[in-house]
């Protein structure tokens, strides 16, 4: 039930932002719309709602966002340089990495972060075993441990503090 209330508030806020500037019409129509979305989604939004109250998670999230944007910018420059280089320096392949994260949200964010960071993107996840299959545009190591060290470690620790 709490999950639905949080979802209702978030949905209503997004509705108000979409309909900016706020006037009476938007405010009134938003209530049934957000209510309907909440009703249809049910309890899918979060299973462990008490975690939304832990302040330290938000602090770590604020640290994660600029780090993520910086990695994203590096990724773009990296890909742009590879593409513009006449000899096209690529050495692609799919490698296997391990993660210790468990919750669905954490795994989703890990996969998204990996996709938007330099040279790597996520092809498939095996949540039971904690294995991610990563396509790497310039394979530096085919060994699972070494690849894990290079790709996953910098995000794993901080994402565990936020979501797990």
């Amino acid at each position, binding site marked *: 039930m709490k999950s639905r209330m949080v979802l209702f508030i978030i949905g209503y806020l*997004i509705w108000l*932002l*979409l309909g*900016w*500037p706020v006037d009476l019409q938007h405010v009134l129509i938003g209530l049934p719309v957000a209510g309907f979305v909440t009703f249809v989604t049910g309890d899918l939004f979060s299973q462990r709602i008490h975690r939304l109250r832990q302040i330290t998670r938000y602090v770590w999230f604020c640290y994660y966002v600029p780090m993520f944007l910086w990695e*994203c*910018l590096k*990724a*773009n420059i990296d*890909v*742009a340089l*590879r*593409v*513009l280089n006449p000899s*096209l320096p*690529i*050495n*692609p*392949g*799919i*490698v*296997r990495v391990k993660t210790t994260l468990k919750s669905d949200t954490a795994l*989703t964010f890990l*996969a*998204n972060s990996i*996709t*938007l960071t330099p*040279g790597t*993107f*996520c*092809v*498939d996840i095996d949540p039971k075993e904690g*294995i991610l*299959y990563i*396509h790497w*545009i310039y*394979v530096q190591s*085919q060994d699972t441990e070494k690849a894990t060290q290079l790709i996953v470690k910098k995000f794993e620790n901080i994402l565990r503090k936020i979501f797990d």
Partner: protein
Amino acid sequence: MSEAIGTLFIVVGLGFDIFGCIGLIRLPDVYNRLQATTKCVTLGTCGILFGTFILKGFCATGIKALLTIVFLLLTSPVAAHALARGAHKSGVKLCDKSVCDKYAEDKK
């Protein structure tokens, strides 16, 4: 001043979009092409939208641009992941230059 910064963001964003498109043409197979398009096009489009936000400020257009950045950052990696997984499941091979394919090994 804000006009200059906004235009700069839009120009840089357009530049990254163009690099993404060049990558789409030059790189050899589906997976490498997805690398170029997800990374460059995500940040390029976010740059254009952020430039729009700076030019317009907190009005109807600017707020929608900011919301679109959030949705784009959340959804575009998921789309790339779905495309790559679908391509691999339906048997698209990696290009000849590829050094390893642990995913195909594990699926057997």
